[in-house]
């Protein structure tokens, strides 16, 4: 009975370790658990290590032990319905606009989160009709339009279809990442800043530290011990390239900008440029990507010690990355395929990193993510990823 509990929790994304599970068994054998209520509390304190997972735990517990319905009609299921619907409709923007009673133009202005909320609110209104709508969605079939179709805003789901749940799972994951704390959020700004502070060069240890020398000598009871500190080096130049095209990136652009602006004083020079999906011949100084282009050739003339930081989901139609005129900007003809541009950038600036808000567990599903990763080291856009990326950027 408890083994399914363990696996269900894991399936729902609560990182329960086998050790923790064995510990629960031990607690049971010690006779500490007298009732189901006890079990609920004890198991939670042993198995679940974050309050973010408490909700999931409650759900699983109710499902397995209390005989409650697996999915309460409120909340969770509606969320999922909203996501599934949204995902499906996004493939045909005209339908979506019609379904929501918006014009396509209005629709384009909504961010993904807003859109989801909008849809969600709508669904709630219509609860009577859609009650228990999971099945309805399921049998509705998934529109077969591929992921290189032409959609406004470009919310793309990389990779191949994984049967019925594929689209749902993929999109669900990405949205959960939006709403939950996994990728970077405003509230984590302080922590993220701390990570960025390490983004400074380290010189060799060849500067005498008088203070530490005295301290160590005292500790040695008079035996002199000389302590060296790292030499201070000049601060870093940072070139930040942000993918601000499309809904998928919207929640992060502001956060990333704010993050680097806060850290600005620590850099010698910080320039922010914008691109859409991938680097073609130009990047833009203005977020609208309209009036102030800068050619990649100009970028390449910068100091090669500049730290090159990409922020983007690296998800696009493969031809956009690989073909000469794959750019979705039809009015503009490229000179080189984007992938060559990325390679040139990566060889010119030896310290480069790509931060991706898409969870790394999904990277293998995105073809273009896989390709870009081989050119530029990729890290998740969350606290752990930032830490790793900064370490990579400051390594010699």
């Amino acid at each position, binding site marked *: 009975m408890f083994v399914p509990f363990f696996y269900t929790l894991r399936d729902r994304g609560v990182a329960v370790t086998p050790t923790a599970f064995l510990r629960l068994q031990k607690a049971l054998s010690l006779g500490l658990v007298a009732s189901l209520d006890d079990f609920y509390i004890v198991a939670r304190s042993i198995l679940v290590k974050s309050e973010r997972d408490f909700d999931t735990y409650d759900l699983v517990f109710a499902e397995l032990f209390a005989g409650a319905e697996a999915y309460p009609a409120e909340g969770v299921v509606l969320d999922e319905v909203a996501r599934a619907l949204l995902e499906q409709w996004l493939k045909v923007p005209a339908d979506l606009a019609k379904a929501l009673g918006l014009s396509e133009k209005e629709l384009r202005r909504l961010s993904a989160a807003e859109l989801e909320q909008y849809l969600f609110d709508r669904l709630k209104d219509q609860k009577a009709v859609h009650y228990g709508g999971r099945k309805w969605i399921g049998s509705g079939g998934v529109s077969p339009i591929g992921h290189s179709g032409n959609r406004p805003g470009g919310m793309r789901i990389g990779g191949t279809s994984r049967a019925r749940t594929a689209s749902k799972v993929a999109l669900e994951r990405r949205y959960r990442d939006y709403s939950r704390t996994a990728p970077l959020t405003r509230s984590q700004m302080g922590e993220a800043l701390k990570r960025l502070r390490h983004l400074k060069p380290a010189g060799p240890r060849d500067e005498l530290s008088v203070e530490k020398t005295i301290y160590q000598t005292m*500790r040695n009871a008079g035996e002199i011990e000389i302590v060296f500190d790292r030499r201070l080096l000049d601060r870093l130049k940072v070139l930040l390239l942000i993918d601000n095209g499309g809904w998928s990136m919207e929640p992060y652009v502001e956060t990333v900008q704010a993050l680097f602006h806060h850290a600005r004083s620590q850099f010698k020079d910080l320039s922010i440029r914008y691109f859409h999906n991938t680097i073609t011949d130009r990047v833009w100084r203005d977020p609208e990507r309209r009036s102030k282009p800068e050619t990649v050739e100009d970028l390449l003339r910068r100091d090669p010690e500049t730290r090159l930081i990409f922020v983007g989901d690296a998800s696009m139609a493969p031809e956009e990355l690989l073909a000469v005129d794959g750019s979705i900007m039809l009015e503009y003809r490229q000179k080189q395929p984007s992938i060559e541009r990325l390679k040139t950038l990566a060889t010119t600036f030896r310290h480069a990193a790509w931060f991706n808000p898409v969870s790394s567990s999904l990277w293998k599903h995105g073809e273009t993510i896989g390709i870009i990763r081989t050119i530029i080291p990729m890290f998740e856009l969350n606290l752990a990823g930032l830490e790793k990326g900064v370490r990579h950027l400051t390594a010699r």
Partner: protein
Amino acid sequence: MTEQNFHRFGGASRYVLDEELAKIVNVSMALEMPLLLKGEPGTGKTMLAHAIAESLEMPLIILNVKSSMKLVEALYQYDTLTRLNDSRFGDSSRDVSNISEYIRMGKIGQAFVADQRTVLLIDEIDKADSDFQDDMLDVLDQMQFDIMEIDRTVTARIRPVVIITSNAKKDLSDPFLGRCNFHHIAFPEPDIMRRIIAVHFPDLSNDLAQPAINAFYRLRQLEGVEKKPATRELLNWIRALQADPDFRTEALSDGVLPYLGVLFKKSSDLEKAGLVTAS
């Protein structure tokens, strides 16, 4: 909230430990595992450790973690300066050639060598770096550490009850979490908040308290606020309201909220709050 306030709040005889928490404490003790308490600042994590110590009738040893702290400081200190001084002037009763006379136990060391079972509170563990955290759990796991200078191993006589607190801000490492039991203290509900306020302001009339609490919880609901006001801010706010001779309690119900700066510490938050109350 200070310890003193806590004593007023419950006292050993009157304070009833939250049933859920009591169970978790018992399990942690039985499994001999540290208990990690997380929660927003101002939810009384530290206070709960005091309550646990009191209801278990054990002495409480508090290790206040600081960001620059090294683990060895929490274990023991080798007082080289005193030794140097003694060897130079030789006017103390200590034996200079005996290093162990200059070893002082740190907080964790004290808990290990205590004659009776103690409650060891490790406060605000998230301030320290992750090396400190992992190394500390090694020590707590094995219940022993070495004093290098005198080549002695200190082993805990009686395993202390270890309570660790952390502000929810920072994620602790997975290995660390794996070795702890976990409990998250939710922000107090309004009726509990009323009781907390009653502890701090025994003479406060309900006319002021209730509207203030209502306004406070309404303000906590505000979207996009970076630093939500916590219990501490509410208490200070009430203090400010009381101090103002011109303040009328009816104003609160009318939606006039003075001294918002006491509740919101970030200028962007204050602006947001100001907009809401003005409209």
